[in-house]
């Protein structure tokens, strides 16, 4: 018995089982996600509609035009936020780090808001959203890094400057919001994060980036493992600590900005996902990164199922059919208590 335990990596088992469970969850949630909305479609109808049965034309339209792209976007945007969170938590060696930490989300949102309020006249405005979001996100990372540059690249200082910059950028967004009251609705949705009205156009601007950056993020696990041993140890292993950390910061920023461009600044999910993952599969980035990616995708999809279900209830109880709960509100609602729990746990362990 003892020998068995000794020769097995305790995290490896949970990793394999966990991945299977997560894939199963993805399937279940996909069905639920497609089912829920203003019109509830039963699984049976979903199957028939996907099989292009004639009399299901109405459902087919809803599923193909509205629900399916939204499902895919939720999964992939969540995955990107999860991977970004895992990368940041590894390189800062701080379990409370999240994609918003370096002000990336705030910077992306500000640029998006500026873009949609001032460049709205330009025909194909949405197509450039990822680029716009990236400019904001990467610009913020560069700025934060320049400000916190000093001897030895102090990570705490980096985080502090990042949080400060983030709140300054956020107040800039609020200022724009005050001056453009007609756009309040859409600006707020970007700030909270929402999947409402996400269709194939949005998917088309998400997947090419995701296809390139998620693999890059996963490939960085080898370097991340060395970096999380601490600056001195990583350096003595032959890692160019500064350069590597830099590359990974940029990678996390690009992942975050890509997701924000599609769904807005959804909070907490990039903190919770990697955290759950670390609890289950340990800190070796070779497992932690892929697992965080999957788990967070599942979480965002799950949160959106809840958002959709709640919105449906609201409509049933006679609230305006214009009201749809943004998924960012759900993640914040789930995330805030979780955050408090984390802090409490941390205190206990000291």
């Amino acid at each position, binding site marked *: 018995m003892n020998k068995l*335990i*000794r*020769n*097995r*990596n*305790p*995290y490896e088992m949970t990793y394999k089982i966990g991945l299977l469970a997560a894939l199963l969850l993805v399937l279940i949630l996909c069905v639920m996600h497609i089912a829920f909305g203003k019109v509830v479609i039963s699984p049976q109808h979903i199957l028939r509609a996907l099989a292009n049965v004639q009399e299901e034309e109405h459902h087919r339209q809803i599923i193909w035009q509205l629900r399916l792209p939204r499902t895919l976007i939720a999964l992939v945007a969540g995955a990107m936020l999860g991977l970004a969170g895992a990368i940041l938590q590894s390189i800062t*060696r701080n379990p409370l780090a999240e994609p918003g930490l370096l002000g990336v989300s705030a910077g992306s949102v500000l640029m998006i808001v500026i873009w949609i309020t001032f460049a709205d006249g330009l025909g194909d405005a949405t197509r450039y959203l990822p680029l716009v979001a990236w400019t904001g996100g990467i610009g913020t990372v560069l700025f934060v890094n320049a400000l916190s540059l000093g001897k030895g690249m102090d990570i705490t200082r980096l985080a502090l400057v990042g949080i400060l910059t983030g709140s300054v950028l956020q107040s800039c967004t609020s200022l724009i919001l005050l001056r453009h009251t007609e756009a309040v609705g859409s600006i707020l949705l970007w700030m909270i994060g929402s999947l409402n009205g996400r269709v194939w156009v949005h998917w088309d601007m998400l997947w090419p980036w995701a296809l390139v950056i998620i693999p890059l993020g996963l*490939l*960085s*696990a*080898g*370097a991340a*493992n*060395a970096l*999380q*041993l*601490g600056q*001195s*140890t990583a*350096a*003595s*292993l*032959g*890692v*160019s600590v500064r350069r*590597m950390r830099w590359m990974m910061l940029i990678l996390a920023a690009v992942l975050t900005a890509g997701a924000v461009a599609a769904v807005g600044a959804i909070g907490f999910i990039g903190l919770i996902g990697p955290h759950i993952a*670390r609890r289950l599969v*340990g*800190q*070796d980035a*070779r497992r932690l990164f892929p697992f965080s990616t999957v788990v967070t995708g599942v979480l965002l999809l799950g949160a959106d199922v809840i958002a959709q279900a709640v919105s449906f209830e609201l409509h049933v109880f006679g609230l305006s059919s214009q009201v749809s709960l943004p998924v960012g509100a759900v993640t914040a609602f789930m995330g805030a208590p979780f955050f408090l729990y984390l802090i409490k746990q941390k205190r206990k362990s000291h």
Partner: protein
Amino acid sequence: MKEDQSQKPLLEAQNIELRYNDKPILKELSMDILSGGVTALLGTNGSGKSTLLKTMARLLMPQKGCVYLDGHAIAKESPRSLARKMAILPQSPEVPMAITVRELVEQGRYPHVGPLRMLKKQDHAAIEEALEVTGMQAFEQRPLDSLSGGERQRAWIAMAIAQSTPVLMLDEPTTFLDVRHQLEILELVRRLNQERGTTIIVVLHDLNQAARYADRMVVLKDGRIVRDGTPDRVLTEAVLQEVFGIHATVLKDPVAGTPIFLPHSVVHREG
């Protein structure tokens, strides 16, 4: 100009000056390390031992002076090629807790295979051997946060050994260990030195152990080398009094033949 190979220092610190915020920590310090020896760095807390070790491993850049490895300035060497030549175990390294011993030890292979090939499961003989010589085989699948301080320390040492470098620097490797494990580590150090010819520089606080296991003792005080030589010449009553501030008697170890001291009292300074 041809020189006798055995005379040429493997590692050479030349006129190192290192300051933290304008406070000089190492002052015009020079030291040669010959290939194949065990050198113990000694001195009181804050005398600059860790700083010197880190400077020689290029974890710190001196403001003045230069460190040479095999005659090449280490400042110009690429990080990875340097990490294939020397390994350093920092004093109280920071640990990610939720990885297994084996996963930590695997990291020692980083300079040999690089970031991408580190994604694979590593099963080099070097990892097995490092686990074996440190007695960590039975613990290889245990998460670090389930280990005692001493076991964790040995896991770190195993990582440095898996790096298989000709030079190995250890900063207080015996802290946290019980007396048996202290001796095990020191015997391991000696074995690495004798069997693999690894050149070892080790910071120790126990002078008796240093005298027993090192060929050479280097004593630092306020960032300068104040004594340097064989244990017989360094571990003397005068040094204990002047550098370490204690009155003591130095005897001869009846078994090993090395000097050994018995402390009596603290030297009281005026003021």
